[in-house]
């Protein structure tokens, strides 16, 4: 038998390579293309006499003049529908849950349960859960099907097409937009999606900035801030203001993405953007039934369940934290007071910072933890409607500036633990994973600091 050693094989390959010259790849590719063309000419019959509807739509959807405004209109339209539609069900759910809470209290009294047990289970865990469900469920149940509709319709590549120009200017890859669209669902999935970018440099940029689009877990926080705080600033057109606010936050996220991408491509990740071809798929009308089922079960319920599962131990943990006294002060107050000065500097407070740190496992639980730690301070308000949440926040010194900074910090801060682990897995580098946490956090602090200082300077609060 003729066993060739590897070394001999390699020598042979070298020799043959010299013989056939350097343009082998081109010869292979062009042969394949010619063959494909020949076959296709033989079997395909096209009778295109009617003007394609897709092309008509794309002439508007991707045009220089209408492309961007149409996109913004669509985005704010979706957000308006979400906020308006969620309003009533949210109130209904809150009413229902707090009705049950009263019954639970009666039941605990009937059992002669000790006060701490009632506090932990009802005032702590149940109450937080009630808030999570009534604030988070309705907007998600409306937003996710709408977003999935756009996705299945084929609109997302058009968004990439419209924004390509900006990303090229920022030294990044146009396909980054597609990974950002994925990030709207989940940043970990968005980071994985960065595999579609060929150049390692641009792929890293996309990975490091993916966090600047709000994911499933952070949308509810934005919606809550918009609905209970920002919206009420203007009395007449409450929902419109709220939806414009969320639109603005998302646009800011995109602008920060572009800015950070630009800085990275001029400093750590120098290089020229590579060009690419993006296929615009035909518009396809989604199957509404399965779309509804999937987006409600796989996105809405999933996010909600995750929030609930993490919120239960986190709620209990926070409640215990808030009821253990060290030298006359509770543990949570102790931590919060350490962070208070820093929090104030960027327009937040110590409790909010603690909530963001404890919320590292999943962004869904930041708001529940915050509500929990405010509630545990003994300021027992009668929380029986959605406006009561606003009162709770107000009584803890919140202003519109706090709500704004809360939204922005949520948008810009470090990614959740899962995303960080995914980044480590994809980049195989501790350095880039650390930067993926540090860059956003730095940006969040700078942005919130600037806004707060400007607002204080002009005495806006």
């Amino acid at each position, binding site marked *: 038998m003729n066993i060739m050693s590897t070394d001999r094989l390699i020598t042979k390959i070298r020799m043959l390579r010299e013989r056939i010259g350097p343009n082998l790849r081109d010869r292979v590719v062009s042969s394949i293309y010619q*063959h494909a063309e020949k076959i296709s000419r033989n079997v395909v019959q096209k009778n295109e006499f009617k003007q394609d509807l897709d092309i008509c739509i794309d002439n508007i959807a991707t045009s220089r003049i209408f492309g961007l405004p149409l996109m913004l209109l669509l985005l704010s339209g979706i957000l308006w529908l979400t906020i308006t539609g969620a309003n009533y069900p949210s109130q209904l759910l809150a009413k229902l849950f707090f009705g049950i809470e009263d019954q639970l209290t009666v039941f605990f009294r009937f059992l002669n349960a000790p006060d701490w047990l009632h506090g932990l289970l009802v005032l702590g865990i149940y109450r937080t859960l009630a808030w999570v469900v009534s604030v988070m469920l309705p907007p998600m149940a409306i937003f996710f099907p709408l977003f999935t509709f756009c996705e299945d319709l084929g609109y997302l590549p058009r968004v990439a097409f419209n924004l390509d120009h900006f990303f090229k200017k920022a030294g990044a890859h146009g396909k980054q937009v597609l990974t950002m669209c994925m990030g709207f669902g989940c940043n970990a999935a968005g980071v994985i999606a960065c595999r579609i970018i060929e150049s390692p440099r641009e792929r890293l940029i996309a990975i490091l900035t993916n966090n600047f689009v709000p994911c499933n877990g952070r949308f509810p926080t934005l919606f809550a801030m918009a609905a209970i705080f920002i919206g009420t600033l203007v009395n007449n057109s409450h929902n419109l203001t709220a939806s414009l606010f969320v639109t603005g936050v998302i646009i800011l996220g995109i602008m920060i993405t572009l800015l950070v991408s630009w800085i990275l491509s001029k400093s750590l990740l120098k290089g020229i953007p590579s060009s690419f071809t993006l296929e615009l798929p035909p518009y396809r009308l989604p199957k509404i039934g399965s779309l509804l089922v999937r987006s409600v079960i*796989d996105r809405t319920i999933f996010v909600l369940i995750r929030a609930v599962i993490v919120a239960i131990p986190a709620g209990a943990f926070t409640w215990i934290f808030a009821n253990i006294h060290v030298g006359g002060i509770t543990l949570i107050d102790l931590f919060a007071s350490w962070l208070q000065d820093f929090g104030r500097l960027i327009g937040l407070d110590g409790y909010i910072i603690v909530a963001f740190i404890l919320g590292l496992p999943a962004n869904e639980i930041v708001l529940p933890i915050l509500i929990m730690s405010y509630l545990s301070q003994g300021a027992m308000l009668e929380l029986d409607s959605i406006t009561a949440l606003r009162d709770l926040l107000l009584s803890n010194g919140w202003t519109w500036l706090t709500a704004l900074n809360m939204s922005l910090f949520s948008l810009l801060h470090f990614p959740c633990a899962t995303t960080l682990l995914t980044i480590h897995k994809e980049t195989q580098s501790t350095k880039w994973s650390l930067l993926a946490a540090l860059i956003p956090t730095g940006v969040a602090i700078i942005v919130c600091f600037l806004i707060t200082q400007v607002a204080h300077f002009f005495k806006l609060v």
Partner: protein
Amino acid sequence: MGLTRKSTGIYTFLEEFHTDSSGYQAIIALAGNPNTGKSTVFNGLTGLNQHTGNWPGKTVTLAKGFYQHKGKQIALVDLPGTYSLLAQSVEEQVARDFICFGEPDAVVVVTDATCLERNLNLTLQIMEITSQVVMCLNLMDEAKRKNIHIDHEKLAKLLGIPIVPTAARSKEGLNALKDAIDQTVSGGKRLRPKTVCYDQELETTLAELTSDFSSTFSSRINSRWLALRLLDSDFTMVKQILRYINKTGNNLPSSSEEGLDL
């Protein structure tokens, strides 16, 4: 429809390269250009809910599922959509590596009937690696709407592989596809795909190199394709080929990888 539970969060870690073949009669890889409805075909065959969305580059990892047909357990692996197997992006590597080294029993190429020519490039490349190829000519409903007619019987003759027209969104033709896969796997008919012929000089060079190692390597990878890749300066590929050959028992000296700055 939209992200699913399995495509987000902690589940993003759970992809593996090799498929556990125990318990399955066959492993089928699902390849194709982006946006040809691969994930829809995958869902239609397995009844699973892999994330589908109307945009290219949505599947970048391997998704796995299985189905039963004629009493056989068939494992199905949904590969990332790629235009070719020659390029360098990570998702194309994932697809190529699975077809080459994942040892699927057959590869189903999902193609878009509305733009066949572009899809044929990938099909022809896959046919060079393995003879076990079935074409799923998908989106026939869309082609009909756009007034495009394809003579799929003639296409099957020209390519030398079975071709099944489907409209996966409405589950049309999926049973026929299962039958075709079954026939290919059970080896009822020996397939002889008609691969691309290159120019004279290249073909003689290939023949020369092929004759050298076809007696040595008993691997399932087509030796002509192997020769072509070894000549082409894809360093990562050469490394992987050698690693694969080492692993499958054709013991080559392990120093081989160092000597390879091609």
